[in-house]
């Protein structure tokens, strides 16, 4: 199993690149270190971990098709599949939420630093709650908004 495949699949599932005004600064790719953390955790803790290989193989095959078919193929072969679809959603949520309390019975063990890089804060145009910024910024809308 290949981290690079995990990254490229993550990017596709997340809709990367994301551009303003959706986000304040463009997101054009994903951090490979963070990807490695999520990849490792999912392989260790996801109830669907045994499907990771199949998921990434599927994705590799989809990428050999014309790009304008990828969305449909990902939909039918991955997102609608009872197991691959769950795993793909967990991947998306890992990037969105930074930690994963949704794994039934699992204890999250990510670094608190992951929390700060969760995509939800970027999409909210806020900041990770718990991280100090500066006095008074909250009187104004987010810069660029």
């Amino acid at each position, binding site marked *: 199993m290949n981290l690079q495949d995990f990254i490229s699949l993550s990017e596709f*599932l997340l*809709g990367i690149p994301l551009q303003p005004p*959706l986000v304040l600064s463009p997101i054009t790719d994903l951090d490979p270190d963070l990807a490695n953390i999520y990849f490792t955790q999912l392989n260790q803790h996801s109830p669907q971990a045994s499907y990771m290989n199949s998921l990434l193989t599927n994705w590799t095959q989809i990428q050999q098709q014309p790009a304008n078919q990828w969305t449909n193929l990902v939909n039918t072969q991955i997102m609608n599949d009872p197991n691959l679809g769950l795993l793909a959603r967990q991947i998306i949520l890992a990037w969105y939420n930074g930690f994963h309390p949704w794994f039934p019975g699992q204890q999250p063990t990510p670094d*608190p630093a992951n929390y700060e890089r969760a995509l*939800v804060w970027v999409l*909210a145009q*806020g900041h*990770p709650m718990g991280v100090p910024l500066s006095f008074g910024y*909250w009187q104004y809308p987010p810069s660029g908004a």
Partner: protein
Amino acid sequence: MSQPLDCDVVIVGAGIAGSLVAWKLGSQGVKVIVLESGPGNQSLAQRQSYVDNFKVSGLPYPLRPAALKNYDFFTNSTNYYQEQPPTRPAQGPIGAQINEIAEPFSDYNIISTDVTTKGDWFQSNYERQLGGATWHWLGTTLRLLPTDFALESTYNPSVPGGLTAYDWPISYNQIEPWYGLAEQTIGVSGPDEGEEYLGLTRSSAYPMPGIPQSYLDQQLIAAIQGETFYDGWTKQNYPLEVAPTPQARNSAPGYGGRPQCQGSSSCIPVCPIQAKYDATQHIQLAQQTGNVEFRVQCVAYQVVADTTNSNLPITGIKYKNWQTDANGNISSTEGIVTGKIYVLASHAVENSKLLLNSPCGTITVANQSDQVGRNLADHPVSLVYALTDNPVYGYRGPLSTSGVESLRDGGFRSYRGAFRMEIGNDAWSWPISDPYTTPMNLLGTPGNGIWGQALAEQVANTLTRQIRIGCLTEQLPNPNFRVQLSKTPDQLGILMPQLTYGIDTYGRRALAAAVAASVQIFKSMIKNPVVQWNYEEFSDANGSIVIDQGRTTDSGTPNIFIREGWAGAGHVMGTHRMGPDTDAGKKMSVTNRLQQAHDHPNLYLLGSGNWPSYATGNPTLTISALALWAADTIKNQLSP
């Protein structure tokens, strides 16, 4: 020859009340010993671990292994932010079916299973460590209003069910200078203007300028310009005005040695930089006086009264000093501490439990009135949340910078409780644990849901327009809502408190009105409002929908939501209330206007257990003002 006393003043509890008194007395040369049931984690290093834990799990404390039950954590950690059990008891109208749940919602308490209505689960909790719940509080420091101290004589509330209100034995004018001192002592940032509502007067200025209102507040204010709130009981309109909130967080660097607020947005559960006041500040100042000793991990379990003396002086407090070994096994040693004066400051539930566990002749300490533990109350909170038309950008700034204070008083208090509207800057984190839940919901399950760019757009569109209002509502005292001793001992063999609670008609009517006002505000921020009304949770005792609800039938996708039932505010009140020093007063109250127990000459009870009526203001500033007042009284009692 009798033993020398251990100190001048024994204090049980190192929360804000106990810590302020310890510091004030210690700085005047009084020898003080403070018993704190929990551990003493007061350093900034511990703060960082709370912050890290919060980032990992949403809770400031390390996740518990799933195998241990709730009450196993009674003595050696805190459960203040306990995860809800998966089948949280739903709340709703009288007579509805109670859901079966695996375990009662319990931390230090056992919830009475003798519940006959949904919504009888006490939703608030407290803290056991040096500094108490001030580690986690929001920091709102409102004064109570003049009429809050005279609810009965001003409004004579009259509702089905026969409950009555009580006046405080003190007036606003009498506590006013102590409010000013409390604001100076803990360091409050407050607005120069906008606080003239409802008779509030001030003899001193706030020590720091007000915290700026958020962009979100400004959008709300603009949307409701000129609106009033119609009250169905009095059939009158009342002002719907937003005021900046005074709060114990620094608008200026340096006050109290604290930095300026940097808008971390995690006031609850922990300020990562201590811009928000917490009582560890006065614990450190108390220790610096050289006259105050804090004994941590010491659970007081009995107050000893000398029944051979007709004055019934208190002569000691017994406690258990606990330790845990590397395997988490708990052991303890017995101790007793003695002083001239004794102060119980372990908050409303634990103060009651301690007293109920302390025999005194044929009754228990301080309980001639049989009111100890009774009249348990909270501010039941209504939660209404919405998606505004234009972004308001929550998840930013202190968790609340404004509120509607203009509905906290009025003629309607003859018929229903008042309410205070807290405007949240925290989007939907309280109602639905966002921002994590919305992406999860939108993703759906294989065969449905959205992903990719569409998900990002929908998530962004949702998160930036989320807003919530939580209303603190006022209920009447009910002697049947109470703290008693359960039959279940904790790991130290001390019987755990058992809570019986509910919301009376006066309180339910307040909730209905609060929901109506919240919905009205949000409708002003939305061109095509569609309200999702849950089941009829705010019926009165007769099952009728109460007048203020203003329910409409809307079709379309909802954009205004009402979380079912009510939430706890974390404001535990009423369990050893104050009353006049008259014969009649002593029959209905535990303490007098100086927070001295009626029954014992050297026993003080502090904290919001003293509240005879509950008002709508967050209690901490009043707790602090009264604590400083008590310190003064105690000093005079020691050396008149």
